[in-house]
C-alpha cells in the first residue's frame, strides 16, 4: 500500500512518536486526576502565592470560587488581569496581596470589590504590587525559564517603577545600554482552565493562550481544570500542550471558565459581566452573592 504523507502529516507523525515515547518514559509521574474540591484542598494553602491565569479566555472562575468556598486566607493573588474572578476572591477576604497589571471588568467598567479594598481597606487591607502587561508576561517567562529576572524595554519615564520594588534598571553588559529588569514570578501554585486533558493528565488548550504555559512552568505546583477528559488528545492548530509530568493535578470541571469563554465549547456570558457590576458595587449585595456561593 502506498501512503502519501504531506508536510502536516509528517509533523503529526513526529508529534505522535515523541508523545508516545515520553508518555511511556514518565508514566509514573503523570498528573493526578482529582475533583475540584480535592485539588484546591491539596494544592492551595493559606498564605500561598497563587496565580490564576487565562487572558480573557479560559479564566479559571470555578476554581476561584472553590478557593472562596474553602475559606483560604492571606493569599498573594497573582494575575495579569484581575477581573471578575479576583474581584470575588478579594471581596471574600481571601487576599492579603495582589500582583497585577490591569484590574477592570472588561467591557463594563470598574472592579468594585478591588477598588473598595484598595481605597477603603474593605474587607481587609490589601497590599498591591503593580506592573505593566509586558512586565508581568516577562516575569512569568523568567520564572518558567529558571532565571531570577527578565530584561525588557519597559516602564521608562513612568511612575510605576517608583512604587514597585520588582522593577529595576540594568546595564547591558555588551552595549552599555540601560534596560529594565523585572523579578521572576514563581508562584507556589498556578491554576488554569483548559479545553481538554487525557486520562494521564496531558493538558491541551488553544485559541488565545495568554500566559498559562508560562504560569504553570513557573509555579511549584499546578491545578488544571478542564472542559473535557478524553482518551486521546487530537492535535489542534496553535494548541499549547502541557505534558502531564509538569502538571500536578487535573480536575474535570465543565463550564469551569464561565462567565468567560472556552473556545470550541461556549461563548462569553456578557450578561454575567454586566450583572456583576451592580452586585459588586454594593457590600451588602456582594455579601448575599457570597452567601450563595459558599452555601453551594
Amino acid at each position: 500500500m502506498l501512503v502519501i504523507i504531506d508536510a502536516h502529516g509528517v509533523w503529526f507523525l513526529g508529534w505522535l512518536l515523541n508523545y508516545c515515547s515520553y508518555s511511556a518514559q514518565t508514566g509514573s509521574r503523570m498528573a493526578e486526576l482529582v475533583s475540584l474540591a480535592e485539588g484546591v484542598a491539596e494544592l492551595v494553602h493559606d498564605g500561598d502565592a497563587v496565580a490564576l491565569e487565562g487572558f480573557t479566555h479560559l479564566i479559571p472562575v470555578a476554581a476561584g470560587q472553590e478557593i472562596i468556598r474553602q475559606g483560604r486566607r492571606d493569599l498573594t493573588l497573582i494575575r495579569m488581569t484581575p477581573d471578575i474572578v479576583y474581584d470575588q476572591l478579594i471581596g471574600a477576604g481571601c487576599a492579603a496581596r495582589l500582583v497585577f497589571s490591569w484590574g477592570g471588568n472588561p467591557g463594563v467598567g470598574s472592579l468594585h470589590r478591588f477598588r473598595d479594598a484598595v481605597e477603603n481597606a474593605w474587607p481587609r487591607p490589601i497590599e498591591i504590587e503593580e506592573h505593566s502587561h509586558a512586565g508581568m508576561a516577562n516575569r512569568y517567562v523568567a520564572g518558567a525559564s529558571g532565571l531570577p529576572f527578565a530584561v525588557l524595554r519597559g516602564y521608562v519615564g513612568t511612575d510605576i517603577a517608583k512604587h514597585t520594588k520588582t522593577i529595576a534598571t540594568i546595564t547591558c553588559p555588551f552595549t552599555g545600554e540601560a534596560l529594565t529588569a523585572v523579578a521572576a514570578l514563581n508562584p507556589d501554585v498556578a491554576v488554569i482552565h483548559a479545553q481538554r486533558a487525557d486520562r494521564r493528565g496531558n493538558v491541551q488548550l488553544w485559541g488565545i493562550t495568554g500566559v498559562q504555559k508560562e504560569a504553570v512552568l513557573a509555579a511549584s505546583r499546578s491545578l488544571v481544570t478542564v472542559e473535557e477528559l478524553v482518551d486521546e488528545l487530537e492535535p489542534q492548530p496553535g494548541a499549547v500542550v502541557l505534558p502531564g509530568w509538569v502538571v500536578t493535578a487535573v480536575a474535570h470541571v465543565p463550564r469551569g471558565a464561565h462567565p468567560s469563554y472556552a473556545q470550541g465549547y461556549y461563548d462569553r456570558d456578557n450578561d454575567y459581566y454586566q450583572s456583576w457590576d451592580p452586585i459588586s458595587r454594593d457590600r451588602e449585595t456582594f455579601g448575599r452573592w457570597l452567601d450563595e456561593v459558599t452555601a453551594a
Partner: protein
Amino acid sequence: MSAWTADEMMTVTAARSLAGRASCFVGIGLPSTAANLARRTCSPDLALIYESGAIGAKPTTLPLSIGDGELGETADAVVSVPEIFNYWLQPGRVDVGFLGAAQVDRRGNINTTVIGDYRSPAVRLPGAGGAPEIAASCRETVVVVRHRPRTLVDRLEFVTSLGFGDGPGHRAALGLRGRGPIRLITDLGVLEPDPETCELTLTSIHPGVAVDAVRAATGWPLTVRADLRVTEEPTAAELTALRSLTTRSSTRGGGVA
C-alpha cells in the same frame, strides 16, 4: 441638530488617522471602535494587533474585550502574551499605537492608575495594562478620549504611560524609539504637539463646536493654532460603516465600553 453625534465625529476622525498605516496596536474601547472602522473605510488592509496575541484580527463585531474569541478566530496569527509584547511590540515594528486614557496632560502623558495619593487613592483606576510599552515602542501613538476638564488636565498625579514627558528631548534622553503621541482626538476637536514645546495645541475643531467650548473643557490654557482647521464632516459612507458596526455589536447582546 447635526446628522451625527459628537462621539461619531470623534470615532470617524480617529479612524481617518489610520489611513496609509500598515499596523495598529489597539487598546480596548474608543480606540478599538475607531481601528475597526478604519478597516471598513480608509485602511482596509490595516493589521489590527491586540495584546491578547491576535495579529491581523478581522472581527465582524466590536470586541467586548481585548481577547474575544472572534479576534483569535479571524486573526492571521495568534501568539502568546509574552510573544506579542516581546517580538511584536518591543522592537518597534508596529506603526501606530491607539490608546484611550482616564487622564491626559498637556504633553500627552497618560494616567490610568490612580487619582490622588498612590497608597490611599481617591479613585483607583484599572492600571497600566499594555499601555506603557505601547506608548513607548510603537512608531507613533494616537490617543482618543472624550474632551472633559477632568480628563484633559494640566498635570498628572501619576504617569502610567509616557507622552512627551517634561517636554522636548525627554523621550530621546530616555532612549525611547517611538515618536510619541502625534495626535489627541476628542469629541470636540484634534490636538497636536507644538513642534517647539511638545505641548498639545488645537489644530482642528469639529463642525459646530466653538473654540471657547474647547478651551473650557481643557485643563490647561489651550493654544489654538493660527491655521486652525475645521474637521471634515463624516461622510455618509463613514457613518453607515460605523453604525452598522455598532448596531451589529449591540444586537449581539453586549454593550461596548
